[in-house]
């Protein structure tokens, strides 16, 4: 390992330990496990019978989700709908939930444009609104669902932009923030996926 890789790995390990401590306060025990169940990205698409939010919760708790491989759904209309929903967070939330019944599908090769779009919205428009105005202006469920999807993908890619979006939001979101919504545990699952992504990256760097 060269000096650059060593410096990056050390920083990621330090952040990993810090997030584990933060996350243990929120009492999700699986988050502290050093050995996560290994995820495999879909060859094409995972078909799942459950709903997206339950699947995210299961993945965050390091449980397995029953599924089979199938063909990816039509992308063109979904992507257009997603782009058209940038000012309708509830609609976007529903679109993403419907699309990613199995959340690991966000890592499918067919989802490249979607991932880039989600990353860009998080790091430009949403970041700017939070920094210049208030976190409370955003639809917490929509924001957290997108962060969860990006966090899931961050474990599959060596593209550090995705991991850094998680770093950025970990630093940006107030630690005491507890969104009032039916799925406020999405904040905990985000931390769980973040810890996993950090572990994957510093292990990979090693």
């Amino acid at each position, binding site marked *: 390992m060269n*000096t*650059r890789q060593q*410096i*990056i790995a050390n*920083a990621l390990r330090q*952040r990993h330990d810090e997030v584990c401590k933060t996350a243990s306060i929120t009492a999700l025990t699986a988050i502290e496990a050093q050995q996560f169940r290994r995820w495999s990205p879909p060859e094409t698409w995972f078909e799942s019978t459950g709903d997206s939010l339950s699947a995210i919760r299961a993945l965050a708790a390091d449980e397995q989700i029953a599924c089979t491989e199938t063909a990816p759904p039509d992308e063109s209309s979904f992507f257009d709908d997603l782009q058209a929903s940038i000012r309708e967070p509830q609609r976007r939330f529903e679109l993403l939930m419907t699309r990613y019944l199995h959340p690991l599908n966000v890592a499918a090769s067919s989802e490249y444009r979607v991932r*880039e779009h989600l*990353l*860009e919205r998080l*790091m*430009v428009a949403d*970041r700017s609104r939070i920094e210049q105005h208030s976190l409370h202006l955003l639809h917490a469920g929509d924001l957290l669902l997108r962060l969860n999807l990006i966090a899931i993908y961050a474990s599959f890619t060596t*593209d*550090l*932009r995705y991991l*850094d*979006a998680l*770093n*950025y939001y*970990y*630093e940006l979101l107030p630690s005491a923030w507890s969104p009032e919504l039916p799925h406020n545990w999405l904040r905990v699952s985000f931390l769980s996926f973040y810890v996993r992504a950090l572990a994957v990256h510093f292990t990979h760097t090693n």
Partner: protein
Amino acid sequence: MRTGILAHSFSSAFTIYKAVQDLPGQEVFIILSPSPHRSATASHLANLARFVVTTLKGFDLKPLQLLATGKLIFLRRPLHNEQSVDTLRKLELDVGLHKAGVIYRDVTINAFRLGILNHHIGILPAYRGRSVLEWSILQGDTVGITVFFVDTGIDTGARILMSEEVDITSYTSVAEAKEYLFNLDRIFFPKALALLTGSEPSFQLNDGTGPRYFVMSKLFEGVVDRLLQAKHRAG
């Protein structure tokens, strides 16, 4: 060649003006548009103050000459506004030099015969967007400057006029290195204008395939500072 420096601040535009004014065949204008973060009146008052300070501090009559010869232009509205574009068209400018904090629209870009040049502190097409200096260092890639003609996208303009590696090993923090690279515009803009006034300039293609980078987290900024320090120590 008629060149227009597009800026919000007189001081930053005047720095570029001083670097390019004496190039052969150049007629240079400074075009100040209101900052998007201030009202037009507040922007112009701030610029008038800068104008006076620059003139008095440097015992420099050049700002007054610019004003007297109609080469210092204060736009009342943003650069894409019809009135502003009309003013730009009437100036019959060949090229614009970007010093304003905006993404240009086609109507503004098209007001210049050749387009608007941007001094970008990263190597294109690989490094588009924000914090590209930091990302280049983090990923162990070449640090440098690209001068290219902008389009309406984020660093996606297809015509790259020049691209050069820059040595930053004497700097131990991102802030210092960044300031150094930004200030190189007074070196790179004259070089770029010289290329444009020469015989048939050639362009490299920016195919826009490089990923778009975003503002960096504090965690990775710290990593980049440490990487710079390690490089500095290694000489």
